[in-house]
C-alpha cells in the first residue's frame, strides 16, 4: 500500500507530488529531502523512516522517486513499482530527466492516477494504459541539424538511412500516432560482464548478464518472431557441438513470450506491447567464451625523488574492426597524493587526479581493437611509506563496446507476421555493456626488488558505468525495411 508518491530533483525541487490516501501531510516531502541531505556518502539508504512514515526511494535519471508507505509493506513490490513507474515515464516522455519530467507533469499526474488508486497498484501494463492516457507528451529534444543528415539528396536512399541515429529510440511512444504511423521496433541485445583476473593472469571470476530488450513504437503490433543463433544452448551439462556455439547457464523469458519454436529453432514469439520490455534475460558465470577485451600491464615503482611512478600499458584485444569507446581506467592512489604529471601516448586521451575519490582517472574516448596504449603517471606522495603501496589498486576499467556480445549471441532475423500493412522499420542493436568487469591484473614477473617486498597487487576492473541509456552512435544497423 502506497500512501504518497513524489518525485524530487537532486536539488530538492518538487516535481511531482501525489497523495493517494490523505494519511500524511505534504511536509513529508521536505522531511525526506532533509533526511537525504543530512547523510553523507554517495547514496542514502533505500529505506528511511520518520515516525510511522517509511520512505522507499529509487534513483533514476538523477531524480528521487519516492513512495511513502507502512512498515509491513513488501519492499520488493514497492521498489519494483517505482522502477516500473520510471520505465513508464520514460516510455511516455521519451527520456528520463528533470527537464522531461517537468515538461510532462500533466502526463505523469495522469499516469499516476491510472496506475495507482487509493494506494493500490492497479495496472502498469502499457497496453491497458494507452487507452486511458490522453495527454500528449512534450518532447524536450531541441531541433538538431543531425536529424537532417538522414535525408538523402533528392530524397534518395543514402547509406545513412540504413543506420538510425542513436536518439531514435528515445522518443515518447505515444507521439508515434502523429508521425504518420512511423512504426518502428527496436531490439537491443545488451550484455554486462564482470571479469576478475588474478595477479598471475588467471581468470578468477567471470559473470555475464545479458538481456534482449524490445522497444516497440507500433500502436498495434501483431506477432513478432526473433530468431537467435541456432547453436544457442542453455545449461552447463549440455553437450556442445562443433563451431561457434553460444552457451548460457540460465535463461528466463518475459511472460508474454511463447516458446513453442524455441526448443527446435531457437525462435522467440511474442506480441510486444507498446513501450520497452525485457524479453529475455540470461546469465553465464565462471566461463568466458572469448578472451577479455582488454588487458592491463601495470608497473609501479618509486623513483629516487620519492615519487610514485605508474607505468600502464593497456592492450585492446578486440578484432581490428571494432573499438571500445569511452574507455576509462580508474587507478586508486595513496591518500594525500598531490601533483600528477602524466605522459600519454596520444593527445585525445586525458588523465586527472581526483582527490575526493583518491584516484587517477585515465580517459580514452576511442580505442580501436588490436592496438596498445601506454601512459606514465608520476605522483608526489608526501609521507610516502612502504605500506602506501597497499592502497594502489584495484584498477578498474570502464568502457562500452558497440556491436559486440561476449557470449556471441546474435539475432538471426526479426519478422513481423502477418505482414504489417504500413511500412514497419525494424532495428537491431548489439552491445556489450560490460557493467562490472573486474580485471585483476597482477604485476607479472618483475625484477624490481622494491615491488616484491611491497607485496602489492592490483585488480583491474573492466567496468561500464550503469547509465540509464546506452547509445551506440554507429552501432544501429537496420536489417530490413
Amino acid at each position, binding site marked *: 500500500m502506497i500512501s504518497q508518491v513524489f518525485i524530487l530533483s537532486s536539488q530538492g525541487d518538487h516535481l511531482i507530488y501525489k497523495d493517494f490516501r490523505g494519511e500524511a501531510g505534504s511536509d513529508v516531502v521536505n522531511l525526506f529531502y532533509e533526511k537525504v541531505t543530512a547523510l553523507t556518502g554517495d547514496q542514502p539508504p533505500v529505506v528511511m523512516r520518520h515516525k510511522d512514515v517509511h520512505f522507499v526511494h*529509487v534513483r533514476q535519471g538523477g531524480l528521487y522517486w519516492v513512495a511513502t508507505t507502512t512498515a509491513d509493506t513488501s519492499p520488493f513490490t514497492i521498489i519494483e513499482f517505482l522502477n516500473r513507474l520510471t520505465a513508464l515515464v520514460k516510455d511516455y516522455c521519451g527520456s528520463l530527466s528533470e527537464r522531461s519530467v517537468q515538461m510532462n507533469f500533466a502526463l505523469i499526474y495522469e499516469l499516476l492516477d491510472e496506475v495507482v488508486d487509493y494506494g493500490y497498484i492497479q495496472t502498469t501494463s502499457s497496453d491497458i494504459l494507452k487507452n486511458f492516457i490522453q495527454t500528449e507528451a512534450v518532447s524536450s529534444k531541441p531541433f538538431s541539424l543531425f536529424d537532417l543528415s538522414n535525408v538523402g539528396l533528392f530524397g534518395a536512399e543514402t547509406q545513412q538511412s540504413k543506420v538510425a541515429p542513436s536518439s531514435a529510440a528515445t522518443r515518447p511512444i505515444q507521439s508515434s500516432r502523429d508521425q504518420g504511423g512511423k512504426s518502428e521496433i527496436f531490439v537491443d541485445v545488451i550484455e554486462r560482464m564482470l571479469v576478475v583476473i588474478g595477479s598471475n593472469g588467471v581468470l578468477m571470476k567471470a559473470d555475464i548478464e545479458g538481456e534482449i530488450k524490445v522497444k516497440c513504437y507500433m500502436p498495434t503490433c501483431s506477432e513478432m518472431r526473433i530468431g537467435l543463433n541456432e547453436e544457442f544452448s542453455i545449461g552447463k551439462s549440455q553437450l556442445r557441438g562443433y563451431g561457434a556455439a553460444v552457451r548460457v547457464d540460465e535463461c528466463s523469458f518475459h511472460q508474454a513470450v511463447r516458446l513453442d519454436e524455441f526448443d527446435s529453432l531457437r525462435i522467440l514469439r511474442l506480441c510486444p506491447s507498446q513501450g520497452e520490455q525485457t524479453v529475455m534475460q540470461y546469465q553465464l558465470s565462471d566461463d568466458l567464451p572469448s578472451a577479455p577485451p582488454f588487458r592491463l600491464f601495470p608497473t609501479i615503482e618509486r623513483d629516487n625523488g620519492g615519487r610514485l611512478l605508474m607505468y600502464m600499458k593497456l592492450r585492446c584485444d578486440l578484432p581490428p574492426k571494432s573499438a571500445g569507446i569511452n574507455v576509462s581506467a580508474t587507478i586508486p592512489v595513496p591518500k594525500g597524493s598531490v601533483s600528477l604529471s602524466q605522459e600519454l601516448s596520444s593527445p585525445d586521451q586525458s588523465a586527472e587526479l581526483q582527490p575526493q575519490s583518491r584516484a587517477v582517472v585515465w580517459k580514452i574516448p576511442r580505442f580501436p581493437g588490436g592496438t596498445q596504449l601506454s601512459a606514465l603517471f608520476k605522483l608526489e606522495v608526501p609521507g610516502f611509506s612502504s605500506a602506501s603501496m597497499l592502497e594502489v589498486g584495484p584498477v578498474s576499467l570502464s568502457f562500452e563496446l558497440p556491436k559486440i556480445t561476449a557470449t556471441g549471441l546474435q539475432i538471426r532475423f526479426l519478422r513481423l507476421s502477418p505482414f504489417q500493412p504500413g511500412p514497419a522499420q525494424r532495428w537491431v542493436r548489439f552491445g556489450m555493456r560490460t557493467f562490472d568487469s573486474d580485471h585483476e591484473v597482477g604485476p607479472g614477473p618483475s625484477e624490481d626488488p622494491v615491488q616484491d617486498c611491497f607485496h602489492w597487487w592490483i585488480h583491474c576492473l573492466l567496468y561500464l558505468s550503469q547509465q540509464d541509456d546506452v547509445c551506440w552512435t554507429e552501432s544501429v544497423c537496420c536489417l530490413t525495411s
Partner: protein
Amino acid sequence: MPYIGSEDTVRDLRRVLSNPNVQSDQLRYRNTILKVIRAMSQGVDVSGLFSEMVKACATVDIVQKKLVYVFLCSYATLNPELSLLVINTLRKDCQDPNPMVRSLALRNMTNLRLPSLVEYVEQPLTAGLRDRAACVRRVAVLGWAKLHNLQTNSEIDAAVVNELYSLLRDPDPVVMVNCLRALEEILREEGGVAINKPITHHLLNRLKECDIWGQCEVLRILQRYRPQSEDELFNILSLLDVSLISPHPPVMAATLSLFLSLCSGLPAVGLAALERVRGPLLAACGNTSREMQFTALCHIQLLLRSLPGLMGEHYKRFFCGYAEPAYIKQRKIEVLVELVNDDNVAILLDELRGYCTDVNISTAHAAISAIGRIGRSYSDKCLEILTELLGLKQEHITSAVVQTMRDLVWVCPQCSRTVCSAVEGCEAEIQDSQGRHALLWLLGVYGEQVSSVPYTLEVFIDGVRSEASVGVKMELLTATVRLFLCRPAETQDMLGRLLHYCIEEETNMCVSDQALLYYRLLHCGIEETRKVLQCRRSDPSLGVLIGRPAEPINQWSYIFNTLEPLRPGAIETESATIGGSPEHMTFDPKPNNDLSDTLSYSFGKTVRSVTDTALQCTDSSSDALTASVSAPLSLSLSPALSPEEFEDLWLQQQALHVEQGPEKIKAEENYVYMEEHVQCPTIFRCSPQSLQAAMQLVNIQTLAFTPPHTLPWRVYLYTNTQNKHSADTCHGTLILGELLYTGEEIQKKSKDEENVGVEARQDKREEEREEDTAEGRSEKERVKKNTAEKGIKVTLKQQPRDEKALKGFLSVLTTVLHALSSEK
C-alpha cells in the same frame, strides 16, 4: 515553499481563467489550467482559484477534466462548500456513455475526501459496482473502501459487503483483487476479509490471470488461511510452486512468505522452499536496479540465518563491484562473512583486504571488522592482514583495526601475543575516542606482554587534561591501575599523577568517582585490588557461539518481505551475541563494584531489543521492570551455594509449599514463594554455555540445566541480592529459581520434577549423547507448539523475604531471557 510574487501569479491566472475569450478557446483554456497545476506542484498556494477551476470542470475535453480534478482533489478539503458545486458535474459524468469518463468521475468523487459529500456519492458508487465496464467497477470497489475510511465510526453496510464478496467472482482480475483490498479495509475490525476454503481455492485458481501486483496482493492475503488437512496443504503448495521461482522478485518474495507461513509446522518443507528460491534471489541480486539488489541482499541475510550453507558456492556473486554504492558494499561484506568456509577463506580474505582501503570510510570499517569476525575461526590469516593494515598508518584504518583486534582477543585469547606486538606503537595514529578506548583496554589487560606500555600510558596521562571523552579517561584509569598491578615500579609515579588529577581537578563525576574508588581500593591492599581488577581476559563461553546453529525459520519469517530487514542495522545478531561491541567490554571488566550501572545499562539494551523484535512482555514483568529501575539492586554470587545445599534448600521449601497448596504468592514469615510466567518460548533453544554466560554477566549462577531442545526444559539458578537503598540495614537475601518450559500449557508442578535438577547435572553427559535423537523427535513438536505462544514458568524462592528485591531480580531475569531469546 511560497514563491516570491505568488499572489501576482494567482491574480494573473484568475484573470485569464475568467476571461470569456480564453474560455471559448479550448487550447488556451487548457494551457492556462496547465499553468495552474504547474504552480501547484511547485508549491505555490493556488487554492484561491478554486471557484474558477470548478467552472472549468464542466468541459468535454477529457485532458482538461483530468487536470481540473487533480486540482480539485488537492484543495477540496479547504473549500467544502464550493466542492458541493463539483458534485453535480461529477454525478452527471457518471451517466456518461464513455466508460473512461464514468470511471474518472467516480474516482475523483471519492478522492475529494469530504465527509459531507458521502450522501451524494453512495448512489453512483452502488451503480458503479454493476457497471458493465470493468474499469468503472474497479474504481467503484475501491470507492467503498475510501468511503468507509471517511466515516470509520459509521456502521458497515452489510449489503455492500455482500456485493463485494460476490464481486470476488468478477471476470476482471483487477476487480477481484480490488474487492479483496476493499474488504480488508472495510472489515479491518473483524480481522479483514474472511478467507475460507472456497475463497482460497477460487483465488488460487485465478492467480494466473492477475498481473504481478494482483498476485502479490492475493498471496499476502492468503497468508491468513490455514489448510484443513495435510493433503490440502500440499495441493496448495504445489500450485504455488511455479510462482516461487517467478522471475519477478515481488511475486517470488510474496510466495515464499506464504510458503513459510503455511509450512510453519513443517520445517523441512520450509527449508526446501528456501533452496528453491536461491536462483531467483541470486538473480534479483544481479538486477539492474540497485535498490532491488539491495533488497535481495537484505533478504538473503535473513535466509542465511536458517540455512547458512545456502549461498556457499555462490560467494563470488557477493563480491563488491567497484562503483557500487556504500550501502550495497556493506551488506555484501556482511553476507560474505557468513559464507566463509575452508575452501574459500583465502579468496574471500584477499577480496576483503581490497575493500579495507575503500574511499568510503564506513565501508573500509565494515571490511576490517568483517576480517576480524572471520578471524574468530581463521585467526592466523586474518591477524596477518590486520597487522599489515596497521602499516598503512592511516588514522581511521588504524582505529578500526585496533577495535577489531580487541574484539578478536576477547573471543580468541590465543591471539593475544600477535595482537600485543602489533598494537605497539600505533597510539600516535589513533585520533578518535573509540579507537583509543580499545587500545587502552588492550594495553591494560595485556600490560605485562608489551614492553613499551608504561611509556604509551604516560603520553596519555600527560595529555589527560585535553582529553574530551569520558570513556577514554575511565578506561585510562582502569588500564593504569591494572598495569600498576603487574609492573608497579614503572607505573607508580604516573598512577599517582593520574589519580591526583582525576580526584582533584576532574569535573566529570563518573571519572572522579572511579578515581576515588580505585584510590580507596588501593588502600585496601594490592590483593583486594587484584581481585577486583584482574578479571577474565576473555570469555571462552562465547567461543561456542561462533558456529552459530541454524535458527528455525519462524524466528524471522514474520519480518520476511517487510521493510524491517532493509533498515540499517536490522540484522546485528552477530555483534550483539558475541562480545564484539564496545559496550560489552565496558561492563565486563568491572565485576562487582558498579553492578547497578551495568544492570541499568542492560535494561536499556534489552528493553530496546524487546520492543524491536516485537516480543510481548507480560504485564507483570513490565511492572516489575519499572519497579526495579527505581530501586537499585545488586546481585552477587557470594556466598556460593553448592548443588547439595541448593537441593536441600529447594526441597525443604518445596515441602512447605506443597502443604500450603499452589497459590500465586505465598508469604511465610521468612521466605517467599512465587510463580511467574515469562513470555519467551524460544529461550530453550539457547545453548547452555550462552545461557550461563549471560546469567553470569548479571551475577546469577546457573546450577543445572537440561540440554537445549529437550522438553520439558529446566534450569536451576540462584543468586544473592543486596539492597543498596537500605545500606544501613544491608540485608542480603538468597533467591533460588527454576525455569521450566514444558512446551505445553502451563501445568501444575509434578512432584518428581525437583529431583531432575541435580540429576540433570550429574547425568549431563548421558543426556547430551541422547540429545541428537531428542532433537529430531522434538523438532516437529517444537514448531507446532511454538505457534501458540507459550511461556516459561519461573518459580522463585526467596529467603529471607524481600519482595522488592525479588521483583527486581525477576525483572533482571526477564530481561536476560528476552535478550537471549531475541538474539537467538
